[in-house]
C-alpha cells in the first residue's frame, strides 16, 4: 500500500467495509454476469451469429428498440410539460401530483402490466373508446409503447424538474423586456438550459424500456415475429432449456446496457461542461 492506494485517514473501518463491499459485489453481481459472458464465449462465431441474426430475434429487436425509442420520445415531450407545470405553476393538488409521478417506480411491474392490459383491452375503459376510432392498443405494438411510456415517465420528469428550477429567471425576464415572445424565450433560454437534463431523462427512459419485461408481457399479446420483445424471447428460450440461445441474447442485451450506461455518462458530462461554461 506504500504506492498510495488510498489517502491516510484517522477514520477506522476502511479495510472491513471496502473488503465486504468488493466481496459482496463480486459474488452477487460480477460473478453471475461473468457466467453470462463465459457461457456466450463458449459458442462458436457461427453459432453466436446464427442465434443473433435469427429472423425471430431480429423481429424482437425491432420491436424492443423501436417501442422503447418511441416511448422515450413521447415521455420527453409530455414529461417536459409535466415537469414544467410542476415547477412553474401552482395549482390545487400540485404536491399530490408531484408525489404520484414516482408511482411507476413503486408499483410492481406485473401490476401495471395487468392494469394497462385491462384498461386498454378492446372491452376496457379506454380500449372501448379507442376501438370506435379503430385503434387497437392491447395485443399490438402500440400496447408495448404504452407500457414503456408508463415505465419511463418518472425518469424524464425527475431529470428535468431540477434543471427547470435552475433556469435563471432574470434571463427570461430580460429577454421578455427586450421584446422576445414567450415562445422565443422558451426556445432560446429555457430549452437550451434544460436540454442536458432532458437528454439524460430520455436516455434513462430508453435504457429502462429496452430491458422492461413485467409491464409489457401482459399487454403485448406475445405473438412471435409481431409483438414479442427480446427479454421475452430470452425467457422462452430458457423455458425450452436452450441455455445457449438465452445466453447469447442475454449477452447482447448486456452489451446494449453498457452502451446505454456509457451514453448516459457522456450526456451528463456534456451537461456539466455546458453548465460550467454558462456559469462563467
Amino acid at each position, binding site marked *: 500500500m506504500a504506492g498510495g*492506494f488510498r489517502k491516510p485517514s484517522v477514520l477506522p473501518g476502511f479495510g472491513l*467495509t471496502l473488503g465486504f463491499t468488493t466481496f459482496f459485489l463480486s459474488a452477487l453481481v460480477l460473478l453471475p454476469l461473468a457466467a453470462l459472458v463465459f457461457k456466450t464465449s463458449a459458442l462458436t462465431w457461427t453459432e453466436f451469429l446464427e442465434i443473433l441474426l435469427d429472423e425471430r430475434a431480429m423481429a424482437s429487436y425491432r420491436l424492443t428498440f423501436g417501442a422503447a425509442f418511441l416511448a422515450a420520445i413521447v415521455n420527453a415531450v409530455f414529461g417536459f410539460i409535466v415537469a414544467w407545470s410542476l415547477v412553474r405553476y401552482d395549482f390545487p393538488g400540485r404536491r399530490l401530483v408531484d408525489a404520484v409521478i414516482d408511482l411507476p417506480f413503486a408499483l410492481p411491474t406485473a401490476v401495471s402490466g395487468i392494469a394497462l392490459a385491462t384498461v386498454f383491452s378492446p372491452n376496457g375503459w379506454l380500449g372501448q373508446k379507442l376501438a370506435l376510432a379503430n385503434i387497437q392498443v392491447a395485443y399490438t405494438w402500440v400496447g408495448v409503447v404504452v407500457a414503456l411510456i408508463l415505465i419511463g415517465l418518472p425518469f424524464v420528469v425527475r431529470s428535468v424538474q431540477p434543471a427547470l428550477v435552475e433556469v435563471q429567471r432574470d434571463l427570461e425576464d430580460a429577454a421578455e423586456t427586450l421584446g422576445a415572445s414567450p415562445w422565443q424565450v422558451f426556445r432560446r433560454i429555457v430549452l437550451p438550459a434544460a436540454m442536458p437534463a432532458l437528454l439524460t431523462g430520455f436516455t434513462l427512459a430508453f435504457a429502462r424500456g429496452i430491458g422492461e419485461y413485467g409491464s409489457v408481457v401482459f399487454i403485448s399479446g406475445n405473438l412471435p415475429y409481431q409483438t414479442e420483445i427480446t427479454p421475452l424471447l430470452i425467457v422462452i428460450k430458457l423455458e425450452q432449456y436452450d441455455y445457449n440461445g438465452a445466453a447469447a441474447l442475454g449477452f447482447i442485451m448486456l452489451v446494449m446496457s453498457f452502451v446505454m450506461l456509457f451514453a448516459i455518462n457522456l450526456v451528463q458530462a456534456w451537461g456539466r461542461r455546458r453548465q460550467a461554461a454558462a456559469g462563467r
Partner: protein
Amino acid sequence: MAGAAHRTEERRLTRRARVVRATLIGVSLAFLGLLLAAPLGAVLAQALAKGWAAYTESFSDPDTRAAIRLTLLTAAIVVPVNTVFGICASWAIAKFEFKGKSLLITLIDLPFAVSPVIAGLVFVLLFGSQGWFGPWLQERDIQVIFAVPGIVLATLFITFPYVARELIPLMQQQGSDEEEAAITLGASAWVTFLRVTLPKIRWGLLYGIILCNARAMGEFGAVSVVSGHIRGLTTTMPLQVEILYNEYNFVAAFAVASLLAVLAILTLVLKTLVEWRAGRGGA
C-alpha cells in the same frame, strides 16, 4: 393614451399566459390521469368487481397465502442484507479516498442498468442443472433454481444498489469532520458510527430501505425466470398475480395486485414524508 395602450397589451399578454398555463396543466393532468390514475383505478375496480366478499375470499386461497408469505420472507432476508451492504459501501466510498472509487460506484449501480430478465438468467447459468455449479449442487441435493434460494438471490441482485445509492451522495456531502473529531477524542469506531454518523444519515437510510423493500416485494421479471412457478412453493405475490390472471381468475388476480398497489402507495406516502422530514430537519 400610450399608457392605456400599454396596459391593454399587458392584459392581452397575461390572458395569453393564462391560457398557456391552463393548457399545460390540463395536458399534464390528462396525461397522468390516462397513464397513472386509470390503471390504478382499474386495479381497485376489478378487485372489487364482484363485491367485498369475493374480494376477501380471494385471500383464503392457500396458494395466495403461501405467495404472500414467500414475498414477506424474501423481503425479510433481502432488505437487511442490502441495508448492511449499502452502509458498508457508502462508508468505504464516502469516508475514504482510494483508487478505483468511481469504477466501484459504477459497478454498484450496474444492476439498475441490467434487464430483470438478465438478472434471473445469470443465476440460472450459475446454479441451473446445466450451470457452472449445477452438478455440484445436484450431488449434494441442494436446489437453488426453481426454489426459494434462487428467488432470494435474484431479488438481492435487483435491489442491490438501492440503499448504497441513497447514502453515498448524502455521506459524501456531509463530509467526515465530525467523525474525525469523535475518533480523535477517543470514541470507538462503533460508537462513532452509532452516535455520530447514523443520526445524520437516518432519513436517507430510511428512504433507501423503503425503496429497496418496495422493489424486493414487487420484483417480477428476475424472480419469474428463476422461480419455476411452482404453485404454493415458489410463487411470490407478483407471480401469483400472473398465474391467476392467466387463468382468467380476474377478481383474485386483481385482489392480490391491489395489495401490491397499496404497498406502492404506502411507499410513496412514506417517501414523501421522509423527503419532507429530511428537507426541514436537516438530512
